[in-house]
């Protein structure tokens, strides 16, 4: 397979062996899917064709794999017309256009939402520039509010094949390992940290296994993804990540805190003393140094924890959001701005932040997951085994 040295659609310089352009998402080997003026009405796939129990994201698949996860978003079934219009709420016609406002509905893989509990929600959106959504998320939460939540975000690397399938499989596999509460250790903080790190290592292993499983054995551009997870148990926030998806704590009072540390060239430059703006906007600003996938360099996550002391939001997001508001102060400001529009429910705030990223240009896929913390108190007694099923 030959790769041109720059993207035919947007001119971005391409790394050796790239199949998709990381800047605009165009396929760069074979015919480009972007920039052609002629649209054949009949040849355009209906937006909902790929839903139901079939394999997800058929267009970029090479080898359909038995046992790959079926897609079922928050609403469960995916037949055309099942979901109301995302723009105005009216009925959607079988051909995927709203019967009232005419808005073209994204496929469920391109835009999905989850609301596992009243205080936890997420939005995973294709954005504007990319033609597919390689981001994925998987959420888990218990009632009552503030008890226990799991937010998993994976950002599939779009220069490789099948990252959309792989990232969703990875996110779901990771979530399954976190149905049981994190260990509390044997008394000491060190013991607890070691036990939590071991649990997260197991989670990473499961996610990586799912990604590798969806990768064709002979693929010369194996699927890969970033990984970040936030687990809320009472007033304790535990996080683990590989790559550059981020967890922030956004308290209602005061400034946000980035809880995770990126595995990225920009982070290395910042650690060497460069300021954030210059590092993240430099030529290598978006290069990640670690990832999940068959060619993952190493699978040890960065693990951290934070004791929450007041009300606020736990935000786990992909770079599709934080690209536009990387500084904690910018995150804080934007969350406040969305809240000022009257949004209080986690889903509404997540939609508001997604809309903001799209309004900024939507240059990448956007995933925003949130857990609302009102009055953090330590988790008491034995954690019950969650019974909440959201699939």
């Amino acid at each position: 397979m030959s790769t041109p040295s720059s993207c035919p659609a947007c001119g971005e310089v391409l790394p050796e062996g790239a199949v998709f352009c990381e800047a605009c998402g165009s396929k760069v080997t074979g015919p480009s899917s972007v920039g052609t003026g002629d649209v054949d009405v009949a040849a355009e796939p209906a937006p909902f064709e790929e839903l139901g129990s079939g394999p997800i994201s058929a267009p970029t698949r090479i080898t359909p794999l038995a046992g790959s996860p079926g897609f079922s978003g928050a609403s469960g079934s995916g037949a055309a017309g099942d979901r109301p219009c995302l723009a105005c709420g009216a009925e959607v016609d079988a051909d995927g256009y709203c019967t009232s406002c005419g808005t073209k509905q994204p496929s469920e893989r391109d835009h999905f939402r989850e609301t596992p509990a009243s205080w936890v929600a997420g939005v995973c959106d294709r954005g504007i520039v990319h033609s597919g959504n390689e981001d994925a998320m998987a959420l888990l939460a218990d009632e009552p509010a503030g008890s226990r939540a799991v937010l998993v975000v994976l950002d599939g690397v779009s220069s490789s094949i099948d990252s959309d399938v792989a990232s969703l499989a990875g996110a779901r596999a990771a979530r399954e390992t976190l149905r049981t509460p994190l260990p509390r250790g044997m008394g000491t903080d060190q013991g607890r940290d070691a036990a939590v790190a071991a649990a997260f290592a197991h989670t990473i292993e499961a996610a990586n296994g799912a990604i590798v499983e969806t990768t064709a054995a002979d693929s010369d551009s194996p699927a890969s993804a970033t990984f970040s997870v936030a687990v809320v148990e009472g007033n304790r926030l535990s996080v683990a990540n590989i790559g550059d998806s981020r967890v922030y704590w956004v308290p209602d009072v005061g400034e946000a805190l980035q809880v995770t540390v990126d595995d990225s060239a920009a982070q290395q430059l910042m650690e060497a003393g460069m300021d954030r703006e210059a590092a993240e906007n430099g030529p290598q600003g978006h290069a990640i140094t670690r990832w999940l996938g068959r060619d993952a360099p190493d699978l040890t996550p960065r693990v951290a924890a934070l004791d929450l002391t007041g009300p606020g939001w736990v935000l786990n997001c992909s770079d599709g959001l934080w690209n536009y508001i990387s500084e904690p102060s910018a995150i804080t400001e934007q969350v406040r701005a969305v809240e000022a529009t009257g949004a209080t429910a986690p889903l509404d705030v997540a939609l508001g932040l997604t809309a903001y990223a799209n309004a900024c240009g939507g240059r990448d896929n956007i995933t925003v997951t949130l857990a609302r913390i009102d009055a953090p108190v330590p988790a008491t007694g034995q954690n019950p085994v969650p019974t909440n099923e959201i699939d």
Partner: protein
Amino acid sequence: MAEFTASVFQNEYLPDGGTDVNAIVTVTCAGAGTAGQTGGGAAGEIIIVDTSGSMGPQTMAAAKQAATAALNEIVDGTWFAVIAGSDRAMLAYPAVSSGPGLVQMSAQTRSQAQQAVSRFVGSGGTAISTWLDLAGQLFGSVPQVTQRHAILLTDGENRERDDTFEAAIARATGYFQCDCRGAGTDWQVDEIRRISQALLGTVDIIPEPGQMETQFREMMRTSMSRGVAEAQLRVWSPQGAQVLFVRQVSPTVEDLTDRRVVINPLTGGYPTGAWSDESRDYHVAVRVAAKAIGQEQLAARVMLAVGDDVLAQALVKATWSGNSELTAKIDQQVAHYTGQTELAAMIQEGLAAKASGDEATATTKLGRAVQLAAETGNDEATSKLKKVVDVQNEREGTVRLKAAINKADEMALDTASTKTTRIKK
């Protein structure tokens, strides 16, 4: 059973802030069958011949011959009548004064009708409203007739108050279709075109009596080939959008915008009359609210419905793009028909200006028409224009009005002004 297909030609890409979406939708009908034979109700035909005193002996003889020829084309079983029109309308055939005013075509009724035609004598004035009203009553007297078509021949100006004439046209609109022909040069194109446009028919001049028979035969043959009695063009547009216009642009330009009837709050219906095996083009323009770059939405669904059944549909889309190479292009079909629509307007306005003595305006408008006819490859318009103006520079559109113009040539240019050509592939 007739089959309809619809295809759309457009540039769906709008620039940032763009709101107006233009598309040409081609609707094609196949397997239409024969009028009145497809199970959707019976067909009715009425031949209306001007028998006023102005009809000279030669014209009258030709008209009789033409009506006779048209009767020969009416398929057996079709309900029909013949009206002789002067300052009032007379039912020439069938000879009844009450009950059903149409009879079914057979060898016997055809020969009786042709005898009735042969007895036409010219006398009296011209009151076309009475002719249209009688035709409507006759169609109404036979309820099983659902496909209603008339042929109207006149040779002179209508001698009625305008509101009387308009009211009669309004009563007939949506009830029957009517093709109109003017014999000689003493009739008014504007006047007769009002009938044909409202009643979804054609208008043309028959300058020489000798051409009448062929024209009548053709008109009736075409009508008999329309196996689909009535079809409706439907346009859905999104909540908050505005349908700027809906025009038929081929085979002729007919503005349908004001003919809209409400199907539901977002969908309007426009009459298209009866269909044979043919293809027609429609230009639909919709104004939608601008969306962000990268967003896609449906700007219109253009549907063809027979009764309550939607038989074909085309999707008109809007996608906002920051790529000016995509957004700057005007679709070839849209450009072509925009030019042809302007051509029709320029010819009509130019001739109207000339008739009112405003030669400067006439010269400018007809000059623009010459330019547009050349640009859009409408050779028929070009040749008709050249009989009225001397072309100095076709590309620039500079012309001079001819010193002596044959009245028939001017009228032929006027009646043919709405005829369009398809884009040259």
